[in-house]
């Protein structure tokens, strides 16, 4: 040993008792053992700590993204606005009762009338209604009132005119009526209330100036601005602004892709495992297949994206950005996971089951399908769910096949353009105004992680509940 010289020189000084009680450096050696233990504990603490910081950072920011604020404001669908092109006036003559005559029109004609003014035409009316609610005169054009107006309008979401327009598109009978609407406030307002922007931030570097911030404080104090749960995160489509961004297209796209993985990867994977485990002779060919499957599980996911692009999009000419392509790519990726899990589950079924079946006259196939497979089912199910969870979180291959596009229509079939949950998170994370988008992004990550957690807990539950020890 390297330390022998050390110990030997130390002996004469330390040795008091009989010679057999030689000092072999036991204290130092125990300390070395203690040190190694501490290194290990420290390493585990670092890893667990990193996980904790990761989750804390997501949850603390995501909590902000899970709530939203709005202000209830009365908006009148003014005949002068809705009949901007003068269709009704032309038809019923100057001075006619527009509301009464509108009510007489057929549903299609009503829809045509409310469809005429463009979305942007609503802006001055929306702004006026907002200013009125805050007690600011929208018509007074004195310099100090104009400043007040600007400060107030900075709070309003630029998306509001579109939302007001959509509302009457859905229900033309609102024409001429006062309606109580939940006005959406801009993402900056929420950022200020969440403490992402503070009054200490240099005024030049924020969109909301001091006057606007003071106004927000006042509105929160008098209860005009109210907090509520942001259900729109699940029901809205994508948007250019964080305040009304939603995951709907991504949720649908991801759901379709999971369905395709379930239909494609699971049967093929289970069938492949049955062959390899129960039928295949041990030879070089099956050896190659086995090595191949293990390697496929470790191929970088983005390579599968390239495969999908070359085979499914360029060769088979399927549409880009569709769940069918994404689902097939993810199926190929999940296949090795399913195979490895299924083989382990089949291996765990004791040979006595097979022998008993064969002994009473079952054929090989009957023994496998009637006896071994049902007993292996819980293990297969667990592996499948874990594979699905992996596929759900996968992003890189989906970017390559264009699942990060902005989709204007809600997809109804797997052949429609769509996005996916993780690629939407990617798009949000790569926005320019990172700080403004961070809460929504984190909230979306919470949605994704919740799905993953549910899937993994189901897998754990299935394993605990049904796993048999032979």
């Amino acid at each position, binding site marked *: 040993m390297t330390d022998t010289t050390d110990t030997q020189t130390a002996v004469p000084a330390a040795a008091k008792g009989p010679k057999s009680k030689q000092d072999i450096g036991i204290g130092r*050696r125990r300390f*070395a*053992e203690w040190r*190694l*233990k501490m*290194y*290990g504990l420290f*390493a*585990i603490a670092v*890893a667990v700590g*990193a*996980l904790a910081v*990761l989750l804390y*950072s997501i949850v603390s920011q995501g909590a902000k993204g899970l709530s939203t604020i709005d202000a209830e404001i009365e908006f009148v669908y003014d005949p002068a606005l809705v009949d901007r092109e003068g269709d009704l006036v032309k038809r019923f003559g100057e001075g006619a009762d527009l509301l009464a005559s509108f009510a007489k029109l057929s549903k299609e004609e009503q829809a045509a009338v409310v469809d005429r003014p463009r979305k942007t035409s609503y802006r001055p009316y929306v702004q006026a209604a907002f200013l009125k609610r805050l007690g600011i005169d929208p018509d007074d054009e004195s310099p100090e009132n104009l400043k007040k107006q600007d400060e107030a309008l900075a709070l309003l979401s630029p998306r509001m005119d579109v939302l007001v327009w959509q509302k009457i598109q859905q229900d033309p009978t609102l024409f001429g009526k006062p309606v109580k609407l939940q006005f959406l406030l801009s993402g900056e307002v929420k950022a200020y209330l969440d403490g992402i922007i503070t009054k200490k931030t240099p005024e030049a570097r924020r969109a909301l100036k001091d006057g606007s911030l003071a106004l927000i404080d006042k509105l929160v104090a008098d209860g005009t601005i109210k907090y509520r749960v942001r259900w729109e995160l699940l029901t809205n489509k994508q948007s250019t602004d964080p305040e009304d961004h939603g995951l709907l297209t991504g949720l649908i796209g991801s759901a379709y892709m999971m369905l395709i993985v379930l239909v494609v990867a699971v*049967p093929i994977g289970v*069938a*492949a*495992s049955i*062959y*390899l485990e129960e039928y*295949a002779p041990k030879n070089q060919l099956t050896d190659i*297949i086995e*090595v*191949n*499957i*293990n*390697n496929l599980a*470790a*191929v*970088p*996911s*983005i*390579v*599968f*994206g*390239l*495969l999908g692009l*070359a085979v499914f*999009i360029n060769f088979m000419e399927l549409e880009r950005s569709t769940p069918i392509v994404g689902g097939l790519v993810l199926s190929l990726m999940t*296949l*090795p996971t399913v*195979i490895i899990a299924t083989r382990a589950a089949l291996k765990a079924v004791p040979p006595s089951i097979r022998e008993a079946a064969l002994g009473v006259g079952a*054929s090989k*196939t009957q023994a496998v399908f009637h006896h071994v497979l049902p007993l292996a089912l819980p293990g297969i199910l667990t592996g499948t769910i874990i594979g699905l969870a992996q596929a759900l*979180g*996968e*992003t890189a291959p989906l*970017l*390559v096949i*264009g699942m990060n596009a902005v989709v204007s229509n809600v997809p109804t079939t797997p052949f429609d353009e769509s996005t996916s949950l*993780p690629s939407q998170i*990617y798009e949000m*994370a790569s926005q320019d105004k*990172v700080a403004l988008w*961070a809460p929504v*992004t984190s909230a979306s*990550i919470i949605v*994704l*992680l919740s799905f993953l957690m549910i899937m*993994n807990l189901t897998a754990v539950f299935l394993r605990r509940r049904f796993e048999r020890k032979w």
Partner: protein
Amino acid sequence: MQALDFVTAPNLALVVLALAVIGYIIGRVRAVAASKGDPSSLHSRPGYHAAFVFIWTGLPALVVLAAWVVLQPFYVEPKGYEVFPKSVMESTTQPADLKMDVVKSIAKALEDFSPEQREKLVLGFRDIESALDRAGVAVAEIDQSYMPRAAQVIFETRQSLKPIMAAVVLGLAVIGFIFSIAVVSRRMRARNRVETAVRGMLIIASSIAILTTFGIVFALIFDTIRFFSVVPFQDFLFGLTWDPTFQGADEEGHSVDSRGFGFVPLIFGTVYISFIALLVAVPIGLFSAIYMAEFATPRFRSIAKPVLEVLAGVPTIVYGFFALVTVGPALAEFFTNTLGLEAQGRSVLTAGIVMGIMIIPFVSSLSDDIITAVPQSLRDASLGLGATKAETVRIVLLPAALPGIMAAVLLAASRAIGETMIVVLAAGATAQITANPLEAMTTITVTIVNLLKADTDFTSPQALSAYALGITLFVVTLVMNVYALRIVRKYREQYE
């Protein structure tokens, strides 16, 4: 024309399946009838007869249909090439198959067009330009002189093949249907035949895993060859700048500038970031593994191991976001304010550290397994000679487990090299070679994503270069994986 529109591969498959289901029912009924009320007189139970009919009706027809879909382009495309002018066919700078992709996209768009629109295509496609654009055709790429005609030829060939395809596929299904129903009888060995078919299908399923590997290699190789026909191999492999901003060839289709396709900065960034990741993951992973394998109580182990494995279950996009908004700014602030260095959020260090956290379980789990697999006799011998546990770990277990641990590190490294989302969000997109870990750098995977994520024209050299990068990535990780898995296998055999 209407009838032809109905003849698509998915529709044919549905018709065949419907026929097969009918066959299943009839087969069952006939088998029951053949037994004349005495089930034990049948060789096989009625379900097997039904499955027999189902397989004979559906399987041959569907196999032929699939083969037809795969093979059709090899017959159709040469017809289109006949229309191509000689100059295009012989061009070395812009391979003809790049042009063919445009032609095929026009031909596909034609399927949804009315006959009038189809006529306009050949007369002068400008009239239907917007319709083509909506159908996803790169209108700017269309060469008026031959492409519309070539597209027309391909479209018409495809249309003329449709009735033949329908006849062959449906004919096979009907023949199979009639034949299999005819042979249903008491003594027919339906079970044996069905079991043979089932076994065949199991074999096919297990060969899909192999096919995927071949698919990856072929898909990547084809487009890589196309890429290297535009950009010389040595410029790619040894070029020091990555800046593919130019627009392919010039007006005449000559003199392509290939200097922007230098691969060196990308591989440098990839290796650098992976190295930092391993610097983080290997010590943490290894020490955790040693502790869990040799010192931890079973209870501690049963909690700590799954918790560590959660790190591998978190989607990489979440790590990427974490790196971008939490780790990056924190590191930048630390280096700027505390050390007075110039630092930014997106850097090699940020990406490396976060990626290191992600791959901890890859190192720790496998190392743990490997250390646990060292035979107890080695431990007992060492402890019996008076060594402490720590000394046993250091002098006996680690040397014995070394090959396995190396394999674990290799697998973790290959995971780091292929990792995409963390680097896309946190490493930046600047292709440069520098030793400073506080600078932004780019990797192979980031470049692939940036080349392809936009709705680009997939035949440009930029898009094709993504395949060259992809195959490099595939080969590098494959070699590492094969080598690592072989070590693990050998190691297991040695101790079993």
